[in-house]
């Protein structure tokens, strides 16, 4: 006889080494078994971000992709609750119908890794905590996760947070799981804060500024009262065979002809508001004598899609790195990278993405050292396939290592989740 109990006692297994549970209870049972048997496990959703970090050598795979679907969406309460591996594209499409969005602009790393779109799942984004160009205005993913359910490393089902934004009941574990790369828990449910999407978008492009002027301008933009929501700088690409020259073809729009390095600033809102802020911003930035272009909503949306999709590094054969720095140090980092590497600046000068064609321990070390001296940090996002085990992927300050290890143990005492991925 088929009963709920019978059904729950079976564990879905793709193969001897790969589990694909249908529900949270099954995840819990599988993890309890793995815990008892001391077996390490790689947790995957759609696998879109599997190539980030060191290559894992786990005994088992926990494929959570069946935990998919919207559980509850209340537009007027500004939240959406989903099963952890719901495709981000599905969430975005549903929100769009109600003129809402995930304001942190989930990145599409598919272009960089595979040359085509692959946005991955909700839990993949949460596990990485990489946020889009609005970071300096709206915060990052960690500021938009308001609740979760998960299974910890002993197989217990745990939860934290709730459906409301203002909540200080107990420790804020939502923050802790963001950017933990699946090393603390197997996520089963996520609740995101959502926000109204903007009716219009407009992009002001300023051509051919020197790197020094461009970074100064980005900083001014992020400190402006004109309520900007994106500020990037795209420099000249290194003119050598190591890097693909795609900037000109990529950013070719009716009102944007590539002439050399450019700075792009986004304004979003109603048409009248954008016009008012644009006029104000031009005054603030003192653009007299500078060559500028202006992208309307259609072109502006396309432009920022390309930035969000990291199409600049489309299917690159090289390593791709991500440096986060205090914005006032941006110019120093750019001077360090200029002409050697292909890069672009995002987050109004706080984030630099760059491509390195000769990544090895010896080439990475001085770059990381330089960024550390700027009080920033560096992450290797994409390794060329043959080098995945070579490098230290993350930058974690030594004084935090012990603490992080203790935190890891408090969730996953036998270190069975994604061992070696981060800690």
């Amino acid at each position, binding site marked *: 006889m088929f009963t709920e109990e019978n059904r729950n006692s079976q564990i879905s297994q793709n193969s001897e080494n790969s589990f694909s549970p249908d529900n949270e209870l099954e995840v819990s049972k599988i993890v309890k078994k793995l815990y008892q048997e001391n077996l390490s496990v790689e947790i995957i959703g759609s696998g879109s971000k599997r190539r980030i970090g060191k290559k894992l050598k786990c005994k088992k795979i926990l494929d959570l992709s069946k935990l998919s679907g919207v559980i509850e969406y209340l537009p*007027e*309460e*500004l939240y959406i609750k989903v099963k952890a591996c719901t495709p981000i594209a599905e969430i975005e499409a549903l929100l769009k119908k109600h003129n*809402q969005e995930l304001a942190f602009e989930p990145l599409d790393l598919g272009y960089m890794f595979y040359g085509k779109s692959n946005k991955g799942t909700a839990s993949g984004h949460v596990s990485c*905590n990489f946020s889009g160009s609005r*970071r300096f205005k709206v*915060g990052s993913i*960690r*500021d938009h996760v308001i609740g979760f359910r998960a299974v910890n490393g002993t197989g*217990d089902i*745990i*939860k934290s947070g*709730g*459906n*409301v*934004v*203002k*909540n*200080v*009941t*107990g*420790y*804020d*574990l*939502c*923050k802790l799981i*963001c*950017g933990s790369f699946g090393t*603390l828990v197997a996520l089963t449910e996520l609740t995101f804060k959502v*926000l*109204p999407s903007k009716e219009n978008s407009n992009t002001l492009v300023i051509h051919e500024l020197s790197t020094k002027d461009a970074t100064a301008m980005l*900083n001014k933009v992020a*400190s402006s*009262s004109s*309520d900007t929501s994106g500020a990037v700088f795209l420099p000249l690409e290194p003119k050598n065979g190591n890097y693909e020259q795609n900037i000109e073809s990529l950013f070719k729009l009716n009102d944007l002809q590539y002439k050399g390095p450019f700075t792009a600033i986004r304004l979003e*809102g*109603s048409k*009248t*508001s954008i016009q*008012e802020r644009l006029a*104000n911003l031009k005054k603030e930035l003192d653009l007299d004598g500078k060559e500028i272009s202006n992208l309307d909503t259609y072109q502006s949306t396309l432009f920022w899609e390309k930035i969000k999709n990291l199409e600049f590094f489309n299917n690159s054969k090289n390593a791709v790195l991500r440096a986060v*720095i*205090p*914005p*006032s140090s941006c110019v120093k980092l750019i001077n360090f990278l200029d002409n050697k590497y292909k890069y672009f600046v995002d987050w109004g000068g*706080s984030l630099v993405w760059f491509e390195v064609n000769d990544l090895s321990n010896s080439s990475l070390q001085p770059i990381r050292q330089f960024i550390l001296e700027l*009080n920033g*940090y560096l992450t290797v996002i994409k390794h060329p396939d043959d080098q995945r085990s070579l490098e230290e992927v*993350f930058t*974690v*300050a030594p*004084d*935090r290592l012990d*603490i*992080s290890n*203790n*935190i890891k143990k*408090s*969730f996953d005492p036998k270190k069975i989740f994604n061992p070696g991925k*981060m800690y």
Partner: protein
Amino acid sequence: MTQLVMPKIDKKILSNKETIVKKLKEITNSNNVLSHESELIPYETDALTAYKQIPLVVALPETTHEVSEILKYCNNEKIKIVPRGAGTGLSGGALPLEDSIVLNLGKFNKILEVDFGNRCVVVQPGVTNLAITKAVQHKGFYFAPDPSSQIISSIGGNVAENSGGVHSLKYGTTTNNILGVEVVLMDGTICRFGGKTYDSEGYDLLGLISGSEGLLGVITEITVEIKKNPQTVKAALIGFPTIEDGGNCVSSIIAGGIVAAGMEMMDKVLIEATDNFSKAGYPRDAQALLIVELDGTKSDVDELINKVSEIAKKNNATSLKISNNEEERLKFWAGRKAAFPACAAMSPDYYCMDGTIPRGRLAEVLKEINRLSKKYDLPVANAFHAGDGNLHPIIMYDANKEKSLEKAEEFGADILKYCVKVGGVLTGEHGVGVEKRELMCEMFNDNDIQQQLRIKKALDYNSLLNPGKVYPILKKCVEEGRARVHRGE
């Protein structure tokens, strides 16, 4: 005063007071160690004055090194520590234990660096919230979180409690507006979480320490993010014939895609109390009053004010005033900001609650609060951060009447349980402290609490930092045998 079960007192520590004082005086200036009863009385409570306990000693260290030495010593000797900022917390988070040292961070009162280039300010924890804005306002910047205590509450306390304020709907709470902290762990380890960058790599320990109510570490330095002032700010003051209409208006504003800088609602009791107190010009015939604040560029604000006015009319608004200048806008707020003194003028004592609910359940929750008010025979006034669903019922009682406080507390607990029942949470911004400790089981089961206790243990192995706070002691939801929380041990 109601009986509160606290962790077991270590008699050995009490009898060792002289040695402890001597050791503390070796670590910090001897004037920074208070041990006579008359010196200790000011530290016996925080802003939850129903609970009082004189600590063993109060220490006021002046440097991070001193904090570290004190904690290291206490960790070795198993002496409990209660960190304290300005003592304005409303949930008893800084309530001392008889055998504890209160670690007052009041001497950490300097602004260390104003860094406009990186849009941040580096401060010591004893600096007041408002002092940060004052330090940067000449260049048009401000620090966004604005708890009503901002004139006196310290930023260290704001981080420990993850304080919010009226503008958190649009600008977030403290955790969303800080970049880094320097923390001393109970074993004396000094470490930095975050810095001047966004989203530091590795586990988000900055996010974990925010709102941890002094249980995980002592914060000795904070880097806060500052924002540029909006160009224009205007407010609308809207009266409604029923709470339902007010609640529906809030939902329609949000459904209309408008993210207001602040949306505050008051019920009739509070409208009259605050208007008597501050002469704010509130519509006294209204059952519910809504203040909607909008910011941005001039055209933005004008457009949004028009939209809000339309929505208000559709939801049966009986009065609608728009601020024409800054003076008027501040007058609109004057009543709301005087909510506590206005209640104090009506009743000898009041008890402010702090639950968060889904906005759409407001009318239902207020109805239940009014029912409970009759049941307990205690008047209640309601202030509500309507934008983010954070409800502050203010229960009025007279502590001199027998069992009055107990009744107020039971009333409060019933309100919070109802908040959880409708899908909300126990506390939006005041913290759990000792006040809501035993209610944690309404929201969390044994697994959830065990996980949190394991995190506590990971950073404070001997459970010496602020014991007796946040997690239940009476074991209502903690399974026998697994818990290490019996009477706080």
